[in-house]
């Protein structure tokens, strides 16, 4: 196993089973993502992108194969171990931001730190730093509905990076943003990536995908293309 490999997916499959029916969604996926890579995943709806993201995000377990994240085989861990892995190694960025509406931006950013047991003062400090690095420090005490979509997504990215995760999983991060805000967020991803953060992003917008350094295309539950993106 390559020591640079942040995420090693070996031969995983996922089948959803109901009583009468079993629906295979992913087959024989092999994917190795090294530290510092910025991988864009594309594919039409229903191709298994979301399922793959859920598996990588430790929100679900594969039916077969193994997922090794930062040296931890997460394929068959208990729920509470998975929660710990999500907390420490994974930063989620969602299409709909998924900030808690009733609390302020900074409190939203603090949530992952609460669950990793960081002291109150330290929590504040780290959250402020994260907001600052996203350029939304002035929005710290605002609630999500008081700030713009682009700002919300930047707060969400601050939440994703606050615990210094090994990998950021972004699911259509610009899907709910206007093109300018979308561009801003992608610039942030780029600069995060330059500073060494590994990013895995799902999108169906080729323009957005081109921010990445590598493109993985999924079709009908299989990887059909895995290529480097040449920067122009």
């Amino acid at each position, binding site marked *: 196993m390559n020591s640079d490999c942040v995420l090693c997916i070996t031969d995983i499959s996922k089948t959803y089973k109901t009583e009468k029916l079993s629906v295979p969604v992913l087959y024989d996926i092999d994917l190795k993502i090294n530290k510092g890579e910025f991988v864009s995943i594309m594919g039409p709806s229903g191709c298994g992108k979301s399922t793959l993201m859920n598996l990588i995000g430790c929100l679900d377990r594969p039916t077969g194969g193994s997922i090794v994240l930062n040296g931890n085989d997460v394929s068959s861990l208990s729920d509470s171990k998975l*929660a710990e892995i*999500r907390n420490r190694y994974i930063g989620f960025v969602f299409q709909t931001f998924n*900030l*808690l509406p009733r609390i302020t931006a900074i409190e939203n950013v603090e*949530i992952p730190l609460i669950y990793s047991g960081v002291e109150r003062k330290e929590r504040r400090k780290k959250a402020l730093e994260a907001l600052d690095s996203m350029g939304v420090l002035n929005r710290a005490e605002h609630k999500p509905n008081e700030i713009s979509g682009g700002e919300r997504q930047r707060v969400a990215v601050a939440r994703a990076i606050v615990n210094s995760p090994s990998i950021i999983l972004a699911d259509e991060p610009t899907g709910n943003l206007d093109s300018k805000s979308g561009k801003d967020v992608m610039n942030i991803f780029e600069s995060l990536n330059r500073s060494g953060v590994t990013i895995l992003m799902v999108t169906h917008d080729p323009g957005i995908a081109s921010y990445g350094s590598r493109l993985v295309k999924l079709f009908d539950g299989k990887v059909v293309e895995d290529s480097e993106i040449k920067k122009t």
Partner: protein
Amino acid sequence: MRIWDSVVMAVRSIFANRLRSALTMLGVVIGIASVIILVAIGEAAKLYVVAQVKSWGMGPNVMQINPGKDQGDMSAYLNSKIRMSDAVAIKEKCPSVSEVLPIISGTGKAKYGKKDYTVRQIWGVTEDYQKIFNHKLTGGRFFTKGEVDGRRKVCILGTRIVKELFGSFNPVDERIKLLGKKFVVIGVFEEKGKMLTFDMDDVIVIPITSAMGLFDTKGVIEIDVAAKSQELVPKAIKEIREVFDKRFSRDDYQITTQEGMMNILNNIIGLLTSVIGGIAAISLVVGSIGIMNIMLVSVTERTKEIGIRKAVGAKKIDIFTQFLIESVVISFFGGLLGIVLGLAGTFLIMYVIKLEMVVVVWALTLAVSVSGFIGVISGVYPAMRAVNLDPIEALRYE
């Protein structure tokens, strides 16, 4: 995750939904308040009864002998085998006894001029009456041993009788008719008020010897005996039994100590208090169901929040404690509010019925722990629901 963080989180989310949280608390508030008020009233009633009995002068060294096997055996009272000579025997043969007072009682019409009044209690007693009972006179005098021995028809009136027959007129030295027989009023009792439902002023006291003639009976219905001290009460009882067992069977008489009387009274009031308190506690159950209901709604409403929290690393136990603590905090604050309301209510009621305010510490402690317990009970199931939500489904929930 630290407990304190959970508590802060819970309080914040309670405040985010002020009206709903307040309404949810209301059930517990009302339940706890009513339990506290009822228990306090019960305790105050107990103290009141004790104070009343004490003001009547029956100290802890006094015991009471009645005919029959059980208190309230009416036929035994009517056919009492106890005679005045038995009282004399106690006085003579029991060294631990200091005072003995036999009582014969009846009811009947008292007449003065054209006015008449049916007296609830006519007591035939000896000159030692005031040595046992704290029943002072405001005018005139009590009767003497000579008047008892001489079967004189003299009487002392309670204030109620004076009011009914004489109005504001001084009755001393006036003649009244009791059951048709002429009696001279020689004294007037001070006003005593009611003891429980019994009007202590609706009383006429006459020499026991005259009462025997008046009611045509020799049956003594009560002998009040004072031991020389409270410590000597058990010894006095033994001595009395020695005297009485030679004269009667055990079924013909009973001895009740003052302590025993108090215990009986306190037990009755205590039982009433707990029954009423128990009924009030039902509202706590209702309150608890209310909390559970709202917590279930809250879990459904916050499905997305639960999903987000799980995604960023909340473990099952974190989600569980979050919702459980929320429920406990609601219930606990409800309990505290209930206590405040209960104490205020108690104060008001005691002020209106003019009883002394009693703070029943055990009831307060119980209220706090019960409300906490209710919080746990009502929170566990909703919290389990939250814990078992699938994070992927929860994140997709809109």
